[in-house]
């Protein structure tokens, strides 16, 4: 009887144990290890020569210009990608909301970039963006417009990277928005029609509020994702030219061998920035979101 009661109380813990072990090993422990590393001047060749230096790494981060430069680049990238993707996906979703075969094909087409490796995409776009022989400049010139140096000038490199990221993710987010739009009962629109609402008003007062939970989710997910951008930058520009596309994660990556401690400290700062940003989103936008 007593043994049975013990099992009754321990059973839930036993059942979640495997998941908790994995979570601890792969999430909690690495985070704390990262924080620990950030407090050291770490020696990769000889672990014993690593030296505890307290908050020196953090002090260094906040005095270095290239950190602020990377942070600014990341902010520009994030704002650009999030804004463009949100607006374009929403536009596409509204356009494709009706269920028809034609729309299904279009939707599948728009979704395809999402299933292709970002490496392939980045390589193809680099090719398209080649200033001398690329297709993009060829087309621009065909219309009598001046070509662009695309990735090879520090003034256009960031916008080019943003362009590729947006192109890559529109289909995916449009898909989520289409699903949200299609879940709105048609009678609500009919009621609005009988209430003599203009199209603009219907969109602003009915459609947007009704899909606001999904939009908010996408906003948070996309902001976090954009803050952590690495792959496109690594392949397309390597942070250049002249550091114009060095984002925070790429910045961390550059210190992977020379200064593990400094890289770790930057990682912690990045984590904190994302956490604060998400918190702010929830604080500022929560009352504008209409959960059913």
């Amino acid at each position, binding site marked *: 009887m007593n043994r049975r009661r013990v099992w009754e109380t321990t059973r839930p813990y036993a059942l979640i144990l495997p998941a908790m072990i994995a979570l601890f090993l792969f999430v909690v422990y690495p985070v704390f290890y990262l924080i620990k590393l950030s407090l050291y001047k770490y020696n990769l060749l000889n672990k014993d020569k690593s030296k505890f230096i307290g908050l020196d790494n953090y002090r260094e981060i906040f005095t270095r210009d290239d950190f602020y430069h990377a942070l600014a680049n990341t902010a520009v990238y994030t704002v650009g990608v999030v804004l463009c993707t949100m607006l374009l996906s929403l536009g596409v979703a509204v356009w494709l909301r009706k269920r028809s075969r034609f729309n299904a094909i279009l939707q599948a087409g728009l979704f395809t970039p999402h299933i292709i490796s970002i490496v392939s995409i980045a390589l193809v776009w680099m090719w398209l963006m080649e200033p001398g022989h690329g297709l993009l400049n060829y087309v621009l010139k065909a219309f009598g417009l001046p070509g662009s140096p695309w990735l090879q000038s520090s003034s256009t490199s960031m916008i080019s990277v943003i362009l590729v990221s947006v192109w890559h993710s529109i289909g995916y987010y449009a898909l989520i928005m289409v699903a949200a739009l299609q879940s709105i*009962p048609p*009678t*609500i629109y*009919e*009621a*609005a*029609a*009988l*209430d*003599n*609402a*203009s199209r603009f*008003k219907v969109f602003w*007062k*009915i459609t947007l*509020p*009704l899909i*606001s939970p999904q939009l908010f989710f996408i906003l948070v997910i996309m902001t976090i994702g954009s803050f952590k951008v690495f792959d496109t930058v690594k392949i397309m520009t390597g942070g250049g030219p002249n550091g114009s596309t060095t984002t925070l994660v790429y910045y961390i990556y550059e210190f992977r061998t020379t200064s593990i401690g400094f890289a770790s400290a930057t990682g912690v700062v990045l984590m904190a920035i994302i956490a604060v940003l998400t918190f702010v989103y929830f604080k500022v936008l929560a009352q504008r979101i*209409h959960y*059913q």
Partner: protein
Amino acid sequence: MASIELVDVSQSFDKNTIIPRLNLKIEDGKFTVLVGPSGCGKTTLLRMIAGLDRQTSGSVLIGGSDVSAIAPGQRGVAMVFQNYAIYPTMSVRENIEFGLKNNKVPKEERTRLVESISETVGLRPYLDRKPSTLSGGQRQRVALARAMVKKPSVFLMDEPLSNLDAKLRVQMRVELIELHKKLGSTFVYVTHDQVEAMSMADTIVLMNQGEIQQEASPAEIYREPDNLFAAQFIGVPPMNVGDMGQDGVRFGFRPEHGLLSTEPADAHFTAKGVISTREMLGSETIYQVRTRDHSFMIKCTEDLFSVDQDIYLSVDESKLFLFGADEKRIYRDDRRHNTYLHALRGRFQ
């Protein structure tokens, strides 16, 4: 206030013809109920009047003018939907106000209207709540208030009570009748429930397969059904119908007009049978009587018999209805009426 007229309207979706060709005039200020089984085209008809689905051909006239090309919001109609279609992200006040705002009604008047309407339907304490916190009955009232506040000349209702529980439904029925009396506007009400139709309507429009079967007052449609469909759709239990076995003619009588007795009675229609089921409903009892050729439902005010009891059934001549092979009623002034009535006498004894 406005009358509604449907002239030669038809409606098809893709290759499905819902309404082949229909003419209907709905009188100004009347409570008209469109009733029929599901898929009979009654909701389609309502949506045509509202302008939500454009008719394939023909024209819709409201207040004498053709509104076929006019948008739903400008037809002067308001509609209550089956699922209420309340805007879930707006408060009760915003829901009621939305139509007024779109029609550019000034703010003070809006507030005044919203408050007086919400008083009428008993929503005053809930004005700043979200619809998700309201009960089914309260949501129903929001939908009603939203329709009423626009002071429409025509009220359209698409099974508005079907999502309420039985008790609330009876209560709302009475409130709707009172509302109609108070507003005096034209009500067009769609339902598949003949009890609702009977209890609320000034005029019932009975539909089946996209065609109007009969258009009459509840009393007339009950007492003088035009055809077999009307006879069997209206009334609980429906009219008893039996085959005469001659020219495909059928006879019928209402459940309350069948008399049961333990001794053979002298009446125009008599039959011997046995009681197979008994439903005691309180003020009345419904027996199912199985005779040699038929099975009839009989409604009695007294509960005198028991299951498996042998019984004699009799129906007075004046209570018998005759229907031809085309399912149309054979009226008393029809030459065939007496022939068939005569043939019926003693036939199923």
